[in-house]
């Protein structure tokens, strides 16, 4: 019989969840599958009962009725905890919508496959094991069939949650974040810097938030850049300039609070160099508006983040190694790595006119500021048809004949034309401390993604983070040092097919993995998975808050200590714990029992 069941289940898995066959494993000795009093099999692991020892079918039916009480019929249901499949079956019977089941433990899944006919579950989506993030990722396709993350309901099988409480809470928070972020109801205020490389990035972020469906307000502080320049002209006294600069910063920062409150935004998004003052950061915190800061600079080079990192609720970086350990040490609670990206609406292939090709085109070009290593490396490119675009190239020396427009700033639109018109776009990440390629360089600059996104061919210096982003030689071309660069330029200039292939693949990769839309989605999910937790922490029934109340009540303290997991407690959670206990009821237990009984009475009278 057992073999028949197993064979049937394998056929069923093959039809609906083929990947899971490899997850099946042998059962540990502490797994017990035995008949319950009613005859149906029941499961216990390490002495912990997963289903009723009396009647698991009835238990599951009652649980399903209770859990599905307020679930709209068209909603999808994600059940946490497969067990032996009783609850999934009961939900299947009661609920017409789609069903997915997440089982944390491959052993439980294997026990179910080996002991009960699961084929009646039909097209249930099963996810077994994996990190919380992976689980949510694996549920993507299921959720798309239900109409979105806000159209799914998470149902938790208590015995399964009890085994993996933190894992469950993490999945729950991620699902809440998905639901919040996906429905596109967020109001986001983006405050840009006045000038500099992070100014366009702030706009890319705002555009991405808009495309994701959120309500976006932009405080474009570039309008104050003339004022900033005017300040420089007002006085030669540094202190006076400093005071005036502070006033300007205060004006811009206070505008953030004013706008955020006026528009009742859910989030303030800032990038490197966006204006901020401690007072405004505190004010936003006071109003419960989370702030996120994307530090798109080198952390060891520009160290102003040190005085700001703890003031923001969320801190995103383009670098990983060492930086996050430092942030954690400083007490920054929520920080994450968020690499740069491209905006395919802007960084796109263009059909250029002959005049534009003549103006922006060349065999070789570079767009960027005149850093030390670039001056040194590019001096060897004099023999090529080489155009150098960008600012800060004072005293260009031999590079003078390559420098375009006398080193004036290049707009985003112009840079896109250059990337399109150039045969080999050289991208050397800047360094003031090296003569060639920085061997320690890790993060990828915006141009790496932007050139690839335009479909231009790119020869970039080798960076530590590159392998995770592009496949070298297939999606992007690399050079490792100054000597190699002219050789590789010559190589690729003579191989148009190879260039074309790499450029196309590079663009495909950007569209797939490196757009601002994806980055902003990731950032919002990070933020709102934690906001959900913060919201739960603010809840008066959060165990932390109840513990505070219990400080002078030893019996309540003891009762609360029986909860292993953190989170918001319900009266039912507490009653469940009380029922598991033995001996005489203590005062805290009695008080909760009273509340439970009173609520039941009030429920019968329709008073609650």
């Amino acid at each position, binding site marked *: 019989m057992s073999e028949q069941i197993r064979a049937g289940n394998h056929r069923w898995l093959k039809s609906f969840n083929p990947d899971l066959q490899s997850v099946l494993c042998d059962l540990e000795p502490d797994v017990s599958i035995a008949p319950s*009093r009613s005859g149906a099999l029941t499961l216990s692991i390490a002495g912990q009962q997963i289903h009723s020892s*009396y009647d698991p079918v009835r238990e599951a039916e009652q649980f399903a009725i209770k859990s599905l009480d307020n679930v709209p019929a068209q909603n999808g249901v994600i059940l946490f905890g497969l067990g032996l499949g009783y609850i999934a079956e009961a939900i299947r019977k009661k609920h017409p919508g789609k069903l997915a089941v997440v089982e944390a433990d491959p052993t439980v899944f294997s026990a179910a496959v080996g002991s009960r006919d699961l084929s009646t579950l039909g097209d249930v989506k099963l996810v077994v094991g994996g990190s919380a993030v992976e689980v949510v990722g694996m549920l993507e396709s299921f959720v798309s069939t239900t109409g979105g993350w806000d159209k799914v309901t998470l149902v938790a099988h208590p015995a399964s949650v009890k085994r993996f409480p933190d894992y469950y809470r993490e999945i729950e928070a991620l699902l809440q974040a998905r639901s919040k972020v996906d429905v596109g109801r967020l109001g986001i205020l983006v405050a840009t810097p006045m000038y500099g490389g992070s100014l366009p990035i702030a706009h890319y972020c705002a555009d991405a938030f808009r495309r994701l469906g959120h309500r976006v307000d932009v405080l474009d502080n570039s309008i104050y850049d003339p004022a900033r320049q005017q300040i420089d002209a007002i006085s030669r006294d540094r202190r006076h300039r400093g005071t005036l600069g502070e006033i300007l910063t205060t004006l811009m920062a206070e505008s953030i609070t004013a706008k955020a409150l006026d528009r009742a935004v859910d989030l303030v998004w800032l990038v490197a160099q966006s204006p901020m003052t401690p007072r405004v950061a505190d004010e936003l915190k006071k109003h419960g508006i989370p702030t996120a800061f994307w530090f798109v600079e080198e952390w060891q080079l520009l160290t102003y983040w040190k005085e700001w990192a703890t003031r923001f609720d969320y801190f995103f970086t383009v670098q990983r190694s060492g930086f996050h350990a430092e942030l954690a040490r400083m007490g920054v609670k929520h920080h994450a790595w968020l690499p740069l990206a491209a905006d395919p609406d802007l960084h796109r292939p263009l059909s250029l006119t002959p005049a534009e090709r003549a103006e922006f085109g060349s065999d070789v070009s570079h767009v960027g500021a005149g850093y030390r290593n670039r001056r040194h490396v590019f001096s060897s490119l004099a023999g090529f048809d080489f155009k150098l675009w960008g600012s800060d190239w004072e005293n260009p020396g031999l590079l003078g004949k390559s420098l375009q427009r006398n080193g004036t700033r290049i707009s985003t639109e112009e840079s896109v034309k250059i990337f399109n018109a150039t045969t080999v776009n050289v991208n050397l990440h800047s360094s003031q401390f090296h003569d060639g390629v920085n061997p320690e360089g890790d993060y990828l600059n915006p141009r790496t993604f932007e050139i690839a996104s335009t479909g231009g061919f790119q020869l970039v210096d080798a960076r530590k983070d590159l392998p995770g982003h592009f496949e070298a030689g297939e999606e992007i071309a690399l050079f490792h040092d100054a000597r190699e660069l002219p050789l590789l330029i010559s190589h690729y200039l003579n191989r148009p097919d190879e260039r074309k292939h790499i450029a196309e693949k590079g663009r495909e990769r950007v569209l797939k993995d490196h757009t601002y839309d994806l980055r902003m989605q990731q950032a919002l999910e990070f933020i709102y998975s934690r906001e959900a937790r913060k919201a739960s922490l603010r809840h*008066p*029934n959060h165990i932390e*808050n*109840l513990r505070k*109340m219990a400080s002078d*009540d030893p019996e*309540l303290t003891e009762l609360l200590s029986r909860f292993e997991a953190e989170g918001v*407690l319900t*009266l039912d959670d*507490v009653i469940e714990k009380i029922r598991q*206990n*033995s*001996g*005489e*009821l203590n*005062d805290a237990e*009695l*008080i*909760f*029992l*009273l*509340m439970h*009984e*009173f*609520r*039941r*009475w*009030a429920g019968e009278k329709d*008073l*609650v």
Partner: protein
Amino acid sequence: MGGREGPGVNESRGADRPRKRLIIQLARFGDVLQTAPVVAGLRRAFPDDEVYILVDAPMGETAKMLPGVTAIHTFDRSGLLDALRQNRLDRAYQIVRDTVNPLNMLAFEEVVNLTHTPESACLTALTRAVTVRGLVATRHGMVSSGHWSRFFRAVLARREWSGYHLIDLHLLLAGVGGQGKDYRLNPIGFSHSERRDGQCLVGINLGANLPHRRWPVTAFAAVANQLATQSNCLVRLVGTSGEAHLAEEFTHLYRGEVDDLTGKTSPTRLARTVGECDLFLSGDSGTLHLAAGLGVQTIGIYLGMARPEDTAPYREGSVIFEPTTTCHPCPENHPCNHFACHADVPVQEVARAALKLLRGDRVLDSEQSGYRCRVVGFDETGDLDLGGEHGRLLRSVWADIMENGKWNMEQGSPDEGQDSKKNMIDELQEIEQGIITGSKDKALMSSVQEKLGEVELLAGNTDGVGLAATLFQLELEQRPADPLEGIRQLREAYLRFEMRVKKLQLIAGRRIPIAFARAV
């Protein structure tokens, strides 16, 4: 009649005086007032002790009318409801704590819980009193402590088989049975009456909490009109603001002078205005009990589910009118909606009785076609008695069952009880042996199997008799038409069920279900 369950004397807290006793009464206005005889009973039985009462917060004022109460404590149920509505566990917890802490400080010798709700059972347990009477919460459920408490619980759904008035049951539960009759409320300074010299004051409460309990306004007005023709009387109307339309209708129909206080009385003012009446007419309501407690002569019109045997005013000479239609009183929670019997209570007779009472004449029991008039009295043991053999017979049977020791293994005092306990343990061992060895006694096996679910719940529960009472109620469904035969069978059934549950309980205590499961 045999001896009753005596006062719970427990010297474990030493002989310090005064000891403190608490009554928990979380029900409504009328119930709070009717707690007075229990307070009086406890005061009489324990003259040196202090008696406290815990009531729902809005009943705090009302409880001041109970003579002999040392202090009134209140429970903020409305606050608790709000906290639970808002899902604020912290606030809800604090509200209960704030109720319990001052009670704990008093270190009660005994708690008498007169409210048969799980909520009151939890409060009872929280008082940590030395002895408990009534429903109390334990790890394994709500347990009725004291056999009269269990009796009370068992007959809640079958009131007609009780034979006892609610106050007498409360007195029995409190261990002070037979000390009744003493229903007296604190008069709260009478108001200055509007009446003129020689004018009698007749109070009327036109309303009732449910329509099937409400005698028509036309009927009350007709009675008042008849009184007005034969006496110089002022009618005073009391009631809730929601009953103003009834008062309006009455005023329209009544030809005499009306003092309409409907919707204008706090509990204190209500006591004042009712207390100075010469006569009070009402359906079965809290105000009727208030009037009786304040020594006012009353006429109660008992309709719908109201049963005078349970809830007649606890005052000698109180007059009750009720229909005698076969369907009266309405079955519990299934009242009719045609109210046909309301017209069976004759206005003429009510008016005649009212006049007699106003003149100081006696009203006698009578039964005519369609209605019955009964006058409250008390039997030789002090229990309220409305005449007729039926009630007396029921009470004597119950007293016999409850007091003779056979039924209650926990008491174990009479020899007969000891013997049956021994026999039962022998029998239990046979059952146990049978289960382990796979007995062929299929009937027994199936009986045990059938009850396994219940046994799991019962494991460790000392209240086997509580369940017996529940099962006993099921047996009542099968009662024969002949009441005397029914009573005999009840007694047997009660004993039988109690025994069976005891056995199952003991089996559960020995963890036999596990062995049983293995054997299967």
